[in-house]
């Protein structure tokens, strides 16, 4: 088998702190999300041209931005939803840099945002989910101003854990939908939005930096949760056993924190993890021969195995944002705390 290569194609330094980056769907453009030293947000749009990056748009927003997503906007509008340091949720029109939606979503910083229902991904209404330091996970519908359509927060009196990451999944028809959230104490919780209940929860010992479903718009299949201590865990979330939960598999990916897990949009079994030491690791999940075993009439999932495909060290600082291009196989952009953004190309992904 030919090994995929991770090639750093273009690199650009900027004068603000980068937190996130996202490809603008159906284009060769991407947007970087970050914070200026004076506490304002930075929203820059770049385009890939023949051999270099062209900066198309520069916007400065009132507060530092932390995270963003296009996943809940339609292909025509391509509005970017962002969460910022003051807990505000904005939806921006990148053509003119004006907000089309705004609300005070949380009292504290929004650490993570995810969307579903737009871009032809997933069935049903376009919705956003935000996770914040205040411990709450809120689901938003941009058609409804000011109030979330669903809110999952700890009971009064319970201690509020910092929610670091959120992800949508299981959106295979217009009714079903679930949200997965990871907290700083290692809790991973899966909320069923239809029944408004906690579907499943577990603890992976260390703070959960990133959770992601392998695909949002299928009956939930796999979930990867990465942790502070360099490890990540892959759950086969197809088969739930009422006693043992989901089958899982743990792997050490990096020497430091695994900041992100990002599945390849073109192949759900391949994903990239990014590390605190500026490294990227590419993985492939191999299914077991039988994914389900039946014992005493109870189904239990069987975990597969992981294949370590490639790694590359891009920077000395944590890679905090990464996004695969939904349109071009193997193209990705990532940003690190060394105030540089990099366009990377992973080759031979179609031969794996």
């Amino acid at each position, binding site marked *: 088998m030919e090994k995929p290569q991770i090639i750093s194609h273009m690199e650009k330094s900027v004068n603000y702190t980068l937190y996130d980056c996202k490809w603008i769907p159906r284009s060769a453009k991407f947007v970087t999300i970050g914070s200026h030293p004076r506490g304002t947000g930075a929203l820059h749009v770049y385009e890939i041209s023949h051999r270099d990056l062209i900066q198309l748009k520069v916007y400065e927003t009132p507060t530092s931005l932390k995270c963003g997503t296009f996943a809940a906007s339609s292909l025509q509008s391509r509005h970017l939803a962002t969460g910022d340091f003051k807990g505000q949720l904005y939806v921006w029109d990148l053509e003119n840099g004006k907000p089309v939606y705004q609300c005070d979503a949380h009292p504290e910083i929004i650490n993570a945002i995810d969307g579903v229902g737009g871009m032809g991904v997933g069935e049903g209404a376009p919705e956003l989910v935000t996770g914040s330091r205040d411990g709450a996970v809120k689901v938003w519908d941009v058609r409804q101003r000011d109030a979330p359509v669903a809110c999952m927060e700890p009971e009064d009196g319970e201690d509020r854990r910092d929610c670091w990451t959120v992800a949508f999944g299981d959106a295979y028809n217009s009714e079903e939908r679930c949200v997965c959230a990871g907290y700083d104490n290692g809790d991973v919780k899966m909320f069923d939005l239809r029944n408004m209940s906690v579907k499943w929860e577990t603890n992976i010992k260390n703070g959960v930096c990133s959770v992601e479903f392998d695909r949002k718009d299928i009956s939930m299949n796999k979930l990867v949760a990465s942790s502070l201590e360099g490890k990540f865990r892959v759950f086969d979330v197809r088969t739930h056993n009422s006693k043992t939960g989901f089958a899982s598999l743990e792997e050490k990916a990096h020497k430091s924190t695994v900041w992100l897990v990002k599945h390849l949009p073109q192949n759900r079994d391949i994903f990239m993890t990014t590390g605190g030491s500026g490294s990227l690791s590419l993985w492939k999940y191999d299914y077991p021969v039988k994914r389900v075993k039946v014992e005493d009439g109870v189904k239990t999932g069987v975990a597969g195995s992981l294949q370590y495909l490639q*790694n590359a060290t891009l920077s000395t600082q944590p890679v905090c944002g990464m996004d695969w291009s939904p349109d071009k196989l193997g193209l990705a952009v990532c940003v690190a705390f060394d105030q540089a953004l990099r366009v990377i190309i992973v080759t031979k992904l179609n031969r794996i």
Partner: protein
Amino acid sequence: MTAQMFGVDDRGDKDVTLDMLDYKYIDECNNVKEMERILKVLRSAKDGYYPHLIRHCENKLTNLDPKNKYLRKESPAISSRDLPSEDRDQLTNGLSDWSKEMKNELKSEVNGVHENNLPPIRSSKTMKGNRVKKGDVGSKKTERIRSADYKSWDKYDVDEECKKVDEQNPVVHETKTSIPHKVSAEGMTDEEREMRAGREKDKGNEAFKAGDFEEALAYYSRSISLIRTAASINNRALAYLRLERWEDARMDCDQVLMMEEDNLKAKLRRASSLKEMKMYQDAKLDLDFVLEKEPNNARAKKLLAEVEEKIPKRGHRMEISEVEEDEDEINEETSPAREQIQQFQEPASTQEPTPTEDSASIPKSTPAQNPTPYQDSATQDPRSTESSSPADPASSSTATSSPEPPPQKEFSSTATNLSSNDQTTLPRCEPLTQGNIEVDAQEIEPEIPQSPLPMKIEAIKTSAGEFYRSGQYGEASGKYTQAITQLKMRMKKESDCNYSHALAVLFNNRAACMLKSGNDKSCIQDCDSVLELKPADVKALVRRGSAYEHMEKYVQAYNDFRQAQVADWSASQAQDGANRVAKHLRDLHGPGWKDKLSGEFQKELQPDVTREQSNKVPASKPKKKTEKKLPSTTSVKAEEMEAKRQKIRQDLFTKLKSEGNEMVRSGKYNEAVERYTKCINICPEEVASYTNRALCFLKLKKDLSAVHDCTEAIKLDEGNVKAHFRRGQARRNLGMMTDAEKDFVKVIELDPKNRSAKNDLDALRTEIKSTTKRKIEIEEVSEDEEEPEESGKEPDAFVSSQVKAEEDVARDESWIQAPRDELPSPCEDDDSGSSEVKNEQLDTEEGGKGKPQNEESTLVLPEVPEKMTPYEFGNLWNSIQPKTHVAAYKIILDKVSLDQIPVMVSNKTTDHVIVTFAHIAQSHIDSSEFDRAFLILQHLARAQRFDMAAMFLGQSDKNIVGEVFASLANSVESKKVSFDISDVNRLRACYKI
């Protein structure tokens, strides 16, 4: 003693003592866990830093457990600057083509109005306390009725309770989900729909790979509900087959075959379903068809055998296990890269009774199987198989008769993989296609009778293989040495027997042992011996390359890898090795390393590699190479071998090239590009591969890549007309008008008779002119502030419409409609009239200024009685309503001088245009203007894209055109005209009537 004890305690690795940190101990240790611990201690450098010992330990661990996580090394990201220039260009060009494509798509998408029937907003809910409610499942403690509580028992309703139980149970396991099989495509733009369909198909493929056929079926159906493509229907048929829904599978196959008559996969799948439905006769028909097209298709053969068995005595059923192959077929449809591999892989399974990856499970008594652990090296060479099994006529005859598929299932290339294969459940090893070359070689080579290995040696070889597999390389190499000496003795004694190939296999295996145990020099010697016996042995070349690489003799290593690559383009190890070594060399000698270490490389890259070079033995410094021939190799022999190798390569090259050409003809440009790329890899000096690939890129709208290829071709051959012509076309598409013009001028310089280039040049020049004109016009208008928007739009619409029209004949309709909206009819439109006047003025102005490069077109244009640019002509032409209004078209055409027709029609020739022209010609004939009728048709035939459009003429259209020709032919007989019957016939041929 105590100090040591303390040391141990300090480390906290209780098992690792200092005496373990020793070469000998490491050599003898076979415990993976222990090795891991030793490596950890060594790396921590607590007991001192021993780089060589660390490497030794790592090597040992690699042998024991190649995928061990302690062996994972962090490597810096490769920058695209570090890549070889050709790879880099490919990468950047691919990316630029993609970004351009995206830009175009964006333009067409913007107007799409998206009215989605979105589900209602979720009713707001808050959930406090995010813990799993533990009480939920078990809390409903229904009060147990005490046995003596008779009153309660009277009230107890058994049916009710049973119902309750039934209701509760399914809730627990209602995981099977309902995925809607249809997607409403309402309000979607074409691009969006296409994208969605692609995504759904991807999901289907993924589900299929994960073994979830129901889900795969649902997603394929969704994809089909958006866009019906043969590929997704074909995949759905496979999913149906897996679910044993034979009737549905057959229906899907029927549909695919309606869309693509010759789809062999669909035929094969239909045959499988028909067989299961016991319609053996029909199944046989399908299978016969497949075998006619692909006589070596193993699955078809197998199925046919089964079907034929069934035909006389019905009712007996047999299961087919075809999981692996089909899995790949899915892949194949998604990535054409697999196709080639698939072709080779499929037939393989027939010859092997047990197509398992585990070589150990192959019965050792089977004479056809070479029972060494080196299935890879042994089986890749059909001759060695033959030598060990002369009694097996089946395998040897197929081997000689079929040049395409390898006679044996190929195993993954490295011996290390071999051991890991036992673990992998779904083996995805990419088979090397060396078999292909080897088989060719066999055909060319004069048959040397090969003798079977004597039993004794065979036994030694087997045991050596076992040692190798268990990682005892020293023992294994000892055994191989024994086998080799015995075989050599025998060869001396029995001069009539020829063991050369068996000997080569033994040497090759020993080389692998040497490589594993780090004995690089011996490995190189063994490889030399192998290459002496079998000059083009890829394995040996790769091994020698690795050995050189270990010894840091990168130049030699590079040579070997390159040679291996040349002999077998698919040898991934060779490719990886070459890239790796190239990187080292670049680090050592800077970016110009190739030139610095010139000579050798240049020769290497050429197809005519001389044998002498492969015999080069390492020199102490890579820069200074000493040549040393192996004592036994006579130069005569070497030349012979070289000739053979070249022949093999040539055959492969021609095969790939013809395959590529075939692909182009059938419109599969992506596949064709792959073939040509391989051609270029094999023989980078061949201009035709570049120009052909450029053509494919042009068709695929990857203009930058096309330009790049043409430039390469021009570098190789200055006077290549095709290359210049295609570069011109590509550059025109890219909007580099002046460069394109230069290219076309060059073409005409080289080949003054090239009509299409002339036409293109003319069209290009008018285009340049019209765009410059337009720009000026915009300026003027904005000064006057007279409908600035509309005129601003026009050039844009023109450009985009033209791009579209070029894209696809089928899409021409959109072009026809777009401008019509702006200009309702020719006579009513005052605006266009006024702009025409403006144009005229501008033209004269421009002519006065005298742009030299436009001279030709400005000279031609004034001959037109009423000035018309192709753009205006197009607008007028399209504005005619209804589309059958021949008289109106005729009026337009009358204003165009005959030799201007191709320019005016430019690249927008469609079947409608041809038919309309035919009608006009007919009307001329009716009014006895035979000459004009003939000339109109003659000139139209020179228009761009005419051939393509003529090819797509429908039957009714053809009849119309045919009638015109018939009346023209009649006119030749009866009246006096300036053309004769042969002219008519020639033109008729042009129109493909």
